Protein backbone atom coordinates (compact mmCIF):
# COMPACT_ATOMS: atom_id res chain seq x y z
CA UNK A 1 0.00 0.00 0.00
CA UNK A 2 2.72 2.46 1.03
CA UNK A 3 4.75 1.64 -2.07
CA UNK A 4 1.86 2.24 -4.44
CA UNK A 5 1.05 5.61 -2.90
CA UNK A 6 4.70 6.56 -2.92
CA UNK A 7 4.99 5.69 -6.59
CA UNK A 8 1.84 7.63 -7.45
CA UNK A 9 3.04 10.71 -5.63
CA UNK A 10 6.51 10.48 -7.13
CA UNK A 11 5.45 9.97 -10.74
CA UNK A 12 2.80 12.67 -10.58
CA UNK A 13 -0.25 10.40 -10.97
CA UNK A 14 -1.62 12.30 -8.01
CA UNK A 15 -0.73 15.48 -6.15
CA UNK A 16 -2.09 14.45 -2.76
CA UNK A 17 -3.29 11.26 -1.14
CA UNK A 18 -6.11 11.11 1.37
CA UNK A 19 -5.73 8.30 3.85
CA UNK A 20 -5.42 7.82 7.57
CA UNK A 21 -2.52 8.40 9.90
CA UNK A 22 -2.19 7.25 13.47
CA UNK A 23 -1.79 10.29 15.73
CA UNK A 24 -1.43 9.40 19.42
CA UNK A 25 -3.32 6.19 18.68
CA UNK A 26 -6.19 7.99 16.96
CA UNK A 27 -6.50 7.10 13.29
CA UNK A 28 -7.15 10.52 11.75
CA UNK A 29 -7.73 11.43 8.13
CA UNK A 30 -4.53 12.79 6.67
CA UNK A 31 -3.40 14.30 3.43
CA UNK A 32 -0.10 12.77 2.27
CA UNK A 33 2.08 14.72 -0.14
CA UNK A 34 5.28 14.32 -2.11
CA UNK A 35 6.99 16.85 0.13
CA UNK A 36 6.60 14.59 3.15
CA UNK A 37 6.93 11.06 1.81
CA UNK A 38 8.33 9.81 5.13
CA UNK A 39 4.84 10.19 6.64
CA UNK A 40 3.67 7.29 4.49
CA UNK A 41 5.14 4.92 7.07
CA UNK A 42 2.22 5.85 9.31
CA UNK A 43 -0.44 5.33 6.63
CA UNK A 44 -3.16 3.04 7.98
CA UNK A 45 -6.57 1.74 6.94
CA UNK A 46 -8.74 3.05 9.70
CA UNK A 47 -11.78 1.15 10.93
CA UNK A 48 -13.16 4.56 11.91
CA UNK A 49 -14.33 6.14 8.70
CA UNK A 50 -14.38 9.80 7.76
CA UNK A 51 -15.96 11.20 4.60
CA UNK A 52 -12.73 11.40 2.56
CA UNK A 53 -14.77 12.02 -0.59
CA UNK A 54 -16.26 15.10 1.00
CA UNK A 55 -12.81 16.41 1.90
CA UNK A 56 -11.84 15.79 -1.73
CA UNK A 57 -14.76 17.91 -2.94
CA UNK A 58 -13.65 20.74 -0.66
CA UNK A 59 -10.12 20.48 -2.06
CA UNK A 60 -11.46 20.49 -5.60
CA UNK A 61 -13.50 23.60 -4.85
CA UNK A 62 -10.33 25.35 -3.68
CA UNK A 63 -8.27 24.12 -6.64
CA UNK A 64 -10.14 22.37 -9.47
CA UNK A 65 -7.04 20.93 -11.17
CA UNK A 66 -5.70 19.05 -8.15
CA UNK A 67 -5.29 15.29 -8.66
CA UNK A 68 -6.36 13.38 -5.58
CA UNK A 69 -5.66 9.81 -4.59
CA UNK A 70 -7.59 8.21 -1.78
CA UNK A 71 -8.05 5.12 0.24
CA UNK A 72 -11.37 3.70 -0.85
CA UNK A 73 -13.61 1.34 0.99
CA UNK A 74 -16.63 0.00 -0.86
CA UNK A 75 -18.78 2.84 0.47
CA UNK A 76 -16.16 5.36 -0.68
CA UNK A 77 -16.38 3.89 -4.18
CA UNK A 78 -20.15 4.19 -4.22
CA UNK A 79 -19.99 7.76 -2.91
CA UNK A 80 -17.44 8.65 -5.60
CA UNK A 81 -19.71 7.21 -8.28
CA UNK A 82 -22.55 9.42 -7.12
CA UNK A 83 -20.27 12.47 -6.93
CA UNK A 84 -19.03 11.81 -10.50
CA UNK A 85 -22.59 11.48 -11.76
CA UNK A 86 -23.57 14.75 -10.11
CA UNK A 87 -20.45 16.51 -11.45
CA UNK A 88 -19.01 17.21 -8.03
CA UNK A 89 -15.76 15.41 -8.79
CA UNK A 90 -14.00 14.56 -12.02
CA UNK A 91 -13.20 10.84 -12.32
CA UNK A 92 -10.10 11.74 -14.37
CA UNK A 93 -8.65 13.47 -11.34
CA UNK A 94 -9.39 10.82 -8.75
CA UNK A 95 -7.30 7.73 -8.19
CA UNK A 96 -8.46 5.16 -5.66
CA UNK A 97 -6.55 2.60 -3.67
CA UNK A 98 -9.21 0.06 -2.92
CA UNK A 99 -9.43 -1.83 0.31
CA UNK A 100 -11.52 -4.94 0.55
CA UNK A 101 -14.11 -3.94 3.02
CA UNK A 102 -17.80 -4.80 3.17
CA UNK A 103 -18.83 -8.43 3.60
CA UNK A 104 -18.03 -10.36 0.42
CA UNK A 105 -17.31 -13.94 -0.58
CA UNK A 106 -13.69 -13.20 0.28
CA UNK A 107 -14.42 -11.67 3.57
CA UNK A 108 -17.34 -12.61 5.70
CA UNK A 109 -17.28 -9.66 8.00
CA UNK A 110 -16.43 -6.09 7.18
CA UNK A 111 -13.88 -4.38 9.35
CA UNK A 112 -15.35 -0.91 9.52
CA UNK A 113 -16.78 0.85 12.52
CA UNK A 114 -20.28 0.37 11.21
CA UNK A 115 -20.30 -3.33 11.91
CA UNK A 116 -19.39 -3.16 15.56
CA UNK A 117 -22.12 -4.93 17.49
CA UNK A 118 -24.60 -2.35 18.72
CA UNK A 119 -26.47 -2.63 21.97
CA UNK A 120 -30.13 -1.76 21.98
CA UNK A 121 -31.63 -0.60 25.25
CA UNK A 122 -34.87 -2.09 26.57
CA UNK A 123 -36.85 1.10 26.13
CA UNK A 124 -35.79 1.46 22.53
CA UNK A 125 -36.65 -2.19 21.93
CA UNK A 126 -40.14 -1.55 23.22
CA UNK A 127 -40.81 1.86 21.68
CA UNK A 128 -38.39 2.49 18.87
CA UNK A 129 -36.74 1.01 15.84
CA UNK A 130 -33.67 -1.19 16.16
CA UNK A 131 -30.94 0.37 14.04
CA UNK A 132 -29.72 -3.07 13.00
CA UNK A 133 -33.15 -4.30 11.87
CA UNK A 134 -33.77 -5.35 8.29
CA UNK A 135 -36.48 -3.74 6.22
CA UNK A 136 -38.41 -7.01 6.11
CA UNK A 137 -38.41 -7.16 9.89
CA UNK A 138 -39.89 -3.69 10.08
CA UNK A 139 -42.75 -4.57 7.80
CA UNK A 140 -43.81 -7.15 10.35
CA UNK A 141 -45.11 -4.33 12.53
CA UNK A 142 -48.57 -3.05 11.64
CA UNK A 143 -48.67 0.31 9.91
CA UNK A 144 -49.75 2.19 13.01
CA UNK A 145 -47.17 0.61 15.23
CA UNK A 146 -44.45 1.25 12.69
CA UNK A 147 -45.36 4.92 12.47
CA UNK A 148 -45.38 5.16 16.25
CA UNK A 149 -41.96 3.59 16.46
CA UNK A 150 -40.50 5.92 13.84
CA UNK A 151 -42.07 8.93 15.56
CA UNK A 152 -40.44 7.83 18.81
CA UNK A 153 -37.10 7.86 17.00
CA UNK A 154 -37.68 11.20 15.27
CA UNK A 155 -38.77 13.08 18.37
CA UNK A 156 -35.32 12.53 19.86
CA UNK A 157 -33.71 14.68 17.16
CA UNK A 158 -31.70 17.65 18.42
CA UNK A 159 -31.41 19.21 14.95
CA UNK A 160 -27.64 19.15 14.95
CA UNK A 161 -27.55 18.69 11.16
CA UNK A 162 -24.78 16.15 11.73
CA UNK A 163 -26.52 13.68 9.41
CA UNK A 164 -26.31 16.18 6.59
CA UNK A 165 -22.91 17.58 7.46
CA UNK A 166 -21.10 14.26 7.46
CA UNK A 167 -22.87 12.82 4.43
CA UNK A 168 -20.46 12.39 1.51
CA UNK A 169 -23.21 12.92 -1.05
CA UNK A 170 -24.82 15.99 0.56
CA UNK A 171 -23.33 18.84 -1.41
CA UNK A 172 -26.21 21.22 -2.19
CA UNK A 173 -25.38 24.89 -1.76
CA UNK A 174 -28.83 25.60 -0.47
CA UNK A 175 -30.12 22.86 1.75
CA UNK A 176 -33.86 22.25 2.05
CA UNK A 177 -33.34 21.51 5.71
CA UNK A 178 -32.54 25.19 6.15
CA UNK A 179 -35.34 26.45 3.95
CA UNK A 180 -37.58 28.72 6.00
CA UNK A 181 -40.79 27.59 4.37
CA UNK A 182 -40.05 23.95 5.04
CA UNK A 183 -38.30 23.94 8.40
CA UNK A 184 -38.87 26.72 10.86
CA UNK A 185 -35.55 28.31 11.76
CA UNK A 186 -34.69 28.71 15.40
CA UNK A 187 -37.24 26.13 16.49
CA UNK A 188 -36.25 23.11 18.50
CA UNK A 189 -36.98 20.23 18.31
CA UNK A 190 -37.55 20.26 14.56
CA UNK A 191 -40.99 19.51 13.30
CA UNK A 192 -41.37 15.78 12.91
CA UNK A 193 -41.59 13.75 10.81
CA UNK A 194 -41.18 16.53 8.23
CA UNK A 195 -37.52 17.22 8.99
CA UNK A 196 -36.50 13.59 8.58
CA UNK A 197 -38.77 12.92 5.65
CA UNK A 198 -37.44 15.89 3.68
CA UNK A 199 -33.95 14.54 4.08
CA UNK A 200 -35.14 11.02 3.29
CA UNK A 201 -36.77 12.18 0.05
CA UNK A 202 -33.61 14.01 -0.94
CA UNK A 203 -31.57 10.89 -0.34
CA UNK A 204 -33.52 9.01 -2.99
CA UNK A 205 -31.06 8.18 -5.72
CA UNK A 206 -28.25 9.72 -3.71
CA UNK A 207 -27.72 7.80 -0.47
CA UNK A 208 -25.08 5.13 -0.91
CA UNK A 209 -25.74 3.41 2.39
CA UNK A 210 -22.46 4.21 4.08
CA UNK A 211 -24.03 4.73 7.48
CA UNK A 212 -21.92 7.75 8.39
CA UNK A 213 -25.05 9.78 9.19
CA UNK A 214 -26.23 7.22 11.67
CA UNK A 215 -22.81 7.07 13.26
CA UNK A 216 -22.80 10.85 13.63
CA UNK A 217 -26.33 11.05 15.02
CA UNK A 218 -26.10 11.84 18.73
CA UNK A 219 -29.61 10.49 19.22
CA UNK A 220 -29.05 7.10 17.62
CA UNK A 221 -31.86 7.49 15.10
CA UNK A 222 -31.83 4.63 12.53
CA UNK A 223 -31.22 6.96 9.60
CA UNK A 224 -29.48 4.41 7.43
CA UNK A 225 -32.49 2.17 7.62
CA UNK A 226 -34.81 5.02 6.67
CA UNK A 227 -32.80 5.95 3.58
CA UNK A 228 -32.42 2.30 2.70
CA UNK A 229 -36.18 2.09 2.52
CA UNK A 230 -36.30 5.12 0.24
CA UNK A 231 -33.71 3.66 -2.08
CA UNK A 232 -35.43 0.32 -2.01
CA UNK A 233 -38.41 2.12 -3.55
CA UNK A 234 -36.13 3.84 -6.08
CA UNK A 235 -34.71 0.46 -7.05
CA UNK A 236 -38.19 -0.99 -7.46
CA UNK A 237 -39.73 1.90 -9.35
CA UNK A 238 -36.84 3.05 -11.52
CA UNK A 239 -34.62 0.00 -11.50
CA UNK A 240 -31.85 2.33 -10.35
CA UNK A 241 -29.21 1.18 -7.89
CA UNK A 242 -27.74 4.21 -6.19
CA UNK A 243 -23.97 4.18 -6.11
CA UNK A 244 -23.57 1.30 -8.54
CA UNK A 245 -25.71 2.32 -11.53
CA UNK A 246 -23.50 4.33 -13.85
CA UNK A 247 -26.22 6.56 -15.27
CA UNK A 248 -27.60 9.79 -13.91
CA UNK A 249 -30.09 9.35 -11.11
CA UNK A 250 -33.77 9.55 -12.08
CA UNK A 251 -34.02 12.59 -9.81
CA UNK A 252 -31.55 14.78 -11.65
CA UNK A 253 -33.86 17.63 -12.53
CA UNK A 254 -30.92 19.91 -13.20
CA UNK A 255 -29.80 17.92 -16.22
CA UNK A 256 -31.23 18.02 -19.73
CA UNK A 257 -33.76 15.29 -19.35
CA UNK A 258 -34.68 12.34 -17.25
CA UNK A 259 -32.71 9.47 -18.62
CA UNK A 260 -34.50 6.60 -16.96
CA UNK A 261 -37.94 5.32 -17.70
CA UNK A 262 -39.90 4.30 -14.66
CA UNK A 263 -40.55 0.59 -14.45
CA UNK A 264 -44.23 -0.39 -14.40
CA UNK A 265 -45.21 0.24 -10.82
CA UNK A 266 -45.64 -2.80 -8.64
CA UNK A 267 -45.28 -1.34 -5.21
CA UNK A 268 -45.20 -3.59 -2.25
CA UNK A 269 -44.73 -2.46 1.28
CA UNK A 270 -43.93 1.14 0.45
CA UNK A 271 -45.67 2.37 3.52
CA UNK A 272 -42.92 2.20 6.08
Amino acid at each position, binding site marked *: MQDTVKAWLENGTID*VFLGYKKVDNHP*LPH*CFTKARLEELEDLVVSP*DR*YPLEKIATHMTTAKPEVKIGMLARDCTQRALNVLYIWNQLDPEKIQTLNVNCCPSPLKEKADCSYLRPATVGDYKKEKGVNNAALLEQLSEYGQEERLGRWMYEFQKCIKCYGCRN*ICPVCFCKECSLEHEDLIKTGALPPEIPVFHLIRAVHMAGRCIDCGLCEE*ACPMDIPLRLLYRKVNDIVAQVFDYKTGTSASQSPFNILGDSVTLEPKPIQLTGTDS
Partner: protein
Amino acid sequence: MECKLVPSICSYCGTGCGLLFEVIDDQIVNTLPMKTHPVNEGKLCIKGWNLHEHVNSFLRLKQPLIKTFGRFIKADWNEAIGLAADRFRNIIDQYGPDSVGVLVSAKITNEENYLAQKFARAVIGTNNVDHCARL
Protein backbone atom coordinates in the same frame (compact mmCIF):
# COMPACT_ATOMS: atom_id res chain seq x y z
CA MET B 1 -2.35 22.49 -2.36
CA GLU B 2 -2.16 21.85 1.30
CA CYS B 3 -4.89 20.11 3.28
CA LYS B 4 -4.53 19.48 6.97
CA LEU B 5 -6.91 17.93 9.46
CA VAL B 6 -6.12 19.52 12.77
CA PRO B 7 -7.42 17.91 15.97
CA SER B 8 -8.92 20.33 18.45
CA ILE B 9 -11.49 20.64 21.21
CA CYS B 10 -14.80 22.42 20.85
CA SER B 11 -14.67 25.74 22.66
CA TYR B 12 -18.40 26.27 23.04
CA CYS B 13 -19.29 24.36 26.18
CA GLY B 14 -17.83 22.42 29.07
CA THR B 15 -18.40 19.04 27.44
CA GLY B 16 -15.29 19.53 25.36
CA CYS B 17 -16.04 17.41 22.30
CA GLY B 18 -13.12 16.35 20.15
CA LEU B 19 -13.14 17.58 16.59
CA LEU B 20 -11.02 18.07 13.51
CA PHE B 21 -10.64 21.28 11.57
CA GLU B 22 -10.34 20.83 7.84
CA VAL B 23 -7.72 23.38 6.79
CA ILE B 24 -7.25 23.85 3.07
CA ASP B 25 -4.49 26.27 2.02
CA ASP B 26 -4.48 27.85 5.48
CA GLN B 27 -8.23 28.43 5.49
CA ILE B 28 -10.41 26.55 7.96
CA VAL B 29 -13.22 25.33 5.73
CA ASN B 30 -15.02 22.69 7.76
CA THR B 31 -15.37 20.95 11.12
CA LEU B 32 -15.63 17.18 11.55
CA PRO B 33 -16.27 15.25 14.76
CA MET B 34 -13.37 13.14 15.97
CA LYS B 35 -14.58 9.56 15.70
CA THR B 36 -12.30 8.09 18.32
CA HIS B 37 -12.57 10.86 20.88
CA PRO B 38 -13.74 9.35 24.19
CA VAL B 39 -16.02 12.31 25.01
CA ASN B 40 -18.18 12.55 21.92
CA GLU B 41 -17.43 9.36 19.95
CA GLY B 42 -17.88 10.96 16.54
CA LYS B 43 -20.86 13.14 17.35
CA LEU B 44 -21.26 16.91 17.78
CA CYS B 45 -24.07 19.31 18.53
CA ILE B 46 -25.01 22.08 16.13
CA LYS B 47 -22.58 24.51 17.74
CA GLY B 48 -19.62 22.20 17.40
CA TRP B 49 -20.46 21.44 13.78
CA ASN B 50 -20.28 25.15 12.97
CA LEU B 51 -17.18 26.01 14.97
CA HIS B 52 -15.17 26.93 11.88
CA GLU B 53 -17.67 29.65 11.02
CA HIS B 54 -16.88 31.83 13.98
CA VAL B 55 -13.18 31.52 13.35
CA ASN B 56 -13.69 32.99 9.90
CA SER B 57 -16.55 35.35 10.73
CA PHE B 58 -16.01 38.95 9.70
CA LEU B 59 -17.91 39.92 12.83
CA ARG B 60 -15.22 38.42 15.00
CA LEU B 61 -13.56 40.80 17.46
CA LYS B 62 -9.83 40.84 17.03
CA GLN B 63 -8.98 43.81 19.20
CA PRO B 64 -10.61 45.68 22.07
CA LEU B 65 -13.19 48.36 21.35
CA ILE B 66 -14.04 51.20 23.72
CA LYS B 67 -17.51 52.65 23.66
CA THR B 68 -17.13 56.41 23.42
CA PHE B 69 -20.21 58.61 23.00
CA GLY B 70 -22.24 55.59 21.93
CA ARG B 71 -19.78 54.41 19.31
CA PHE B 72 -17.22 51.61 19.46
CA ILE B 73 -13.72 52.88 18.82
CA LYS B 74 -10.75 50.55 18.29
CA ALA B 75 -8.27 50.62 21.15
CA ASP B 76 -5.16 48.79 22.30
CA TRP B 77 -5.11 46.37 25.21
CA ASN B 78 -3.34 48.63 27.70
CA GLU B 79 -5.82 51.39 27.11
CA ALA B 80 -8.81 49.05 27.40
CA ILE B 81 -7.60 47.30 30.54
CA GLY B 82 -6.64 50.64 32.12
CA LEU B 83 -10.09 52.02 31.43
CA ALA B 84 -11.83 48.91 32.84
CA ALA B 85 -9.69 49.15 36.00
CA ASP B 86 -10.52 52.82 36.46
CA ARG B 87 -14.24 52.19 36.11
CA PHE B 88 -14.10 49.28 38.57
CA ARG B 89 -12.27 51.54 41.00
CA ASN B 90 -14.97 54.21 40.72
CA ILE B 91 -17.82 51.72 41.12
CA ILE B 92 -16.21 50.00 44.11
CA ASP B 93 -15.45 53.37 45.81
CA GLN B 94 -18.97 54.57 45.28
CA TYR B 95 -21.08 51.43 45.88
CA GLY B 96 -18.78 48.97 47.65
CA PRO B 97 -17.13 45.77 46.41
CA ASP B 98 -20.35 43.73 46.52
CA SER B 99 -21.67 45.76 43.62
CA VAL B 100 -19.33 43.72 41.39
CA GLY B 101 -19.79 40.09 40.40
CA VAL B 102 -17.47 37.73 38.52
CA LEU B 103 -18.85 35.12 36.14
CA VAL B 104 -16.49 32.31 35.24
CA SER B 105 -16.79 29.67 32.56
CA ALA B 106 -16.86 25.94 31.95
CA LYS B 107 -14.58 26.44 29.01
CA ILE B 108 -11.59 27.85 30.81
CA THR B 109 -9.11 25.75 32.76
CA ASN B 110 -9.28 25.02 36.49
CA GLU B 111 -6.31 27.28 36.97
CA GLU B 112 -7.97 30.17 35.17
CA ASN B 113 -11.14 29.64 37.20
CA TYR B 114 -9.00 29.67 40.34
CA LEU B 115 -7.39 32.93 39.28
CA ALA B 116 -10.78 34.47 38.54
CA GLN B 117 -12.17 33.69 41.99
CA LYS B 118 -8.93 34.91 43.55
CA PHE B 119 -9.33 38.12 41.60
CA ALA B 120 -12.92 38.48 42.87
CA ARG B 121 -12.08 37.77 46.50
CA ALA B 122 -8.63 39.26 46.95
CA VAL B 123 -8.57 42.12 44.46
CA ILE B 124 -12.17 43.26 44.27
CA GLY B 125 -13.16 42.01 47.70
CA THR B 126 -16.43 40.21 47.02
CA ASN B 127 -17.75 36.65 47.20
CA ASN B 128 -19.96 37.24 44.18
CA VAL B 129 -18.55 34.48 41.99
CA ASP B 130 -20.79 32.42 39.75
CA HIS B 131 -20.51 30.04 36.88
CA CYS B 132 -22.28 29.63 33.55
CA ALA B 133 -23.30 26.08 34.38
CA ARG B 134 -25.47 27.42 37.21
CA LEU B 135 -27.31 30.07 35.19
